[in-house]
């Protein structure tokens, strides 16, 4: 089996990030936005795992894997709060389309 070199790997994680950002910029639906953000976050998590595995020297302090685990947990919390806001917004304004929630401007 062939392993992915650092460049290729970075390309992968960057692609993930890019997809996430693209979604954030183009989607108007709050839930889709959440998903895009999650995709982007995963790019970071993936990086940690990879660098932990292929680090030139033994990492000092927390290991990449543990960071990855923590981040997964963090992502979950974040999404929970996000969904809460989605619900509240839906109840208050009857929409979760961010394009229709532009009362505050200029």
């Amino acid at each position, binding site marked *: 089996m062939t392993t992915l070199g650092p460049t290729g790997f970075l390309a992968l994680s960057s692609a993930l990030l890019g997809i996430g950002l693209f979604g954030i910029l183009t989607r108007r639906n709050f839930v889709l936005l959440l998903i895009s953000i999650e995709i982007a976050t995963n790019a970071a998590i993936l990086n940690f795992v990879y660098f932990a595995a292929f680090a030139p020297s033994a990492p000092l302090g927390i290991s990449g894997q543990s960071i990855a685990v923590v981040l997964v947990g963090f992502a979950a919390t974040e999404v929970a709060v996000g969904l809460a806001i989605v619900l509240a917004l839906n109840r*208050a304004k009857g929409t979760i389309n961010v394009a229709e929630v532009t009362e505050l401007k200029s």
Partner: protein
Amino acid sequence: MDALAMAAPFAPELVLLAAALLVFLLDVLGVRHLEALGAIGTAATGTSLLLVIADLGFGPLGALRTLGASHLDAVPAPGTAPLYAFSSFGLVFQGLFLLAAFLVSLASLSRPSHERGAAVFFGLLLLATLGMLLVAIASDLIFLLLAIELTSIASYILVGYTRRDPRSLEAAMKFYIIGALSSTLSFFGASLLFGAYGTTNLYAIRASAGAVGYPVLALLGFGFLLAGLAFKTTLVPFHAWAVDVYDGAPSDVSAFLAGGTKKIGVFAFFLVFLGPVLYLRGTGGANPFAGPPFDIGPVVQVTLAVVAVLTMTVGNVLALLQREMKRMLAYSSISQAGYILIGVTIGTAPALAGATLQVLAHVLMKSGAFLVVAAVAGLGVGPLIDDWRGLGARRPALSVAFALMLLSLAGVPLTVGFVSKFVLFSAAVQAQGLFVWLAVAGLLNSALSVFYYGRVLKAIFFDPATPTPAPSGAAMGAAGPPPLGAGGIGYARAAAIGLIAVAIVALGLYPQPVLGAIQSAATHFVAGGA
């Protein structure tokens, strides 16, 4: 007791945690009186504020310090990578955060007591403050980012906690999306740095000096981090959310955001960019693609300088024509962030002290201003600046306090805002070289800012009053002693505002005590504490 000895340094954090839990517990138990919960919040923040001051070893309070002076500014042994460390600089910032939280919760005691969600408000306030305290002791990138996230998540909810007001919900939504995006960027940056340095520990990164394996990777990492943290610090162009959020959120929350949570971004900047980066000086050229060794420090400095000037200018220019009071304040607070960033850019001890003093000033001025806005809104005055016309005649005391805050924001002498700008800019001039131009830019900007602050003062004091809608009964209810201007805005709030006004003038006249502590802390920080 070993555990106790271990826990002692965390006394302030623990107090807050306990208070937060207590608030939620009471909420579950059905005790929902705003006064009661607010009292807990105020007491908790006040207590831990005192504890922090004690840890700094201030005068008599020094007796109750829970943190051994030996632990303060202790440089960890090489090879170890602690998650947290107690630096006097961090303690100073803890003090600032707690000050903001204390003022806000004190003022919030005067919120209409029938208001729902008091538990959420105070509980989350305490949690957010806890996160801020953790930020101030972090010495590991991940620890730092997680602490920031704790605060952020708490504040997302805080913004929208009234659950009925669509405006604040919209604000929460925007806050959340941009915040989540930024945190993602920060984490991505952290991951790249992890790749570049093989660690997320700030000591370690700093200790690795110029020997960075992949300068491009490192720079990319710092770039992502800069973007992520810039969101919290509301640097241009990462600022757009702040205006809407400060506008949409309940004024008290805005006060907390502008005066408090925003500052963790500042501290993070100090930690990440000032601590390690400025010392990452290789001997090689300026081409990041040429491989190590490579001067990261100056490159980052230039970038920060550009961002700082951009932030000041755009913030001020945007505030010029702003017709709504809260949005004007939001923009002005953006420009203030620019001033603070000057300190980060220069990175000398004087600049650091100046920036810190500026942070202190901003805590006072901005939270004070938003508290006044909340009070005035309680008096039935509209959101537009024009609605404030003639307030000077109707509410002299309140107006004078507000005027003091604005003048201080404008950096007019005899106010703390002047002293901070003075120290900051004089530090810039003292650093000489190109930094002088930062000072010039800052001064020109503060000259520009006089326009819109002056406009507000003009509206308040000179313009004839426009007929305002009859204030709600609750607002006019309590007839306080007119000279204090407490009537209708509640004594607690009046006390908080009065406190701020006095502090602004007192520190403007004789800043020496605070300044002394700040600059010793700053010197330690630059000298080597993380």
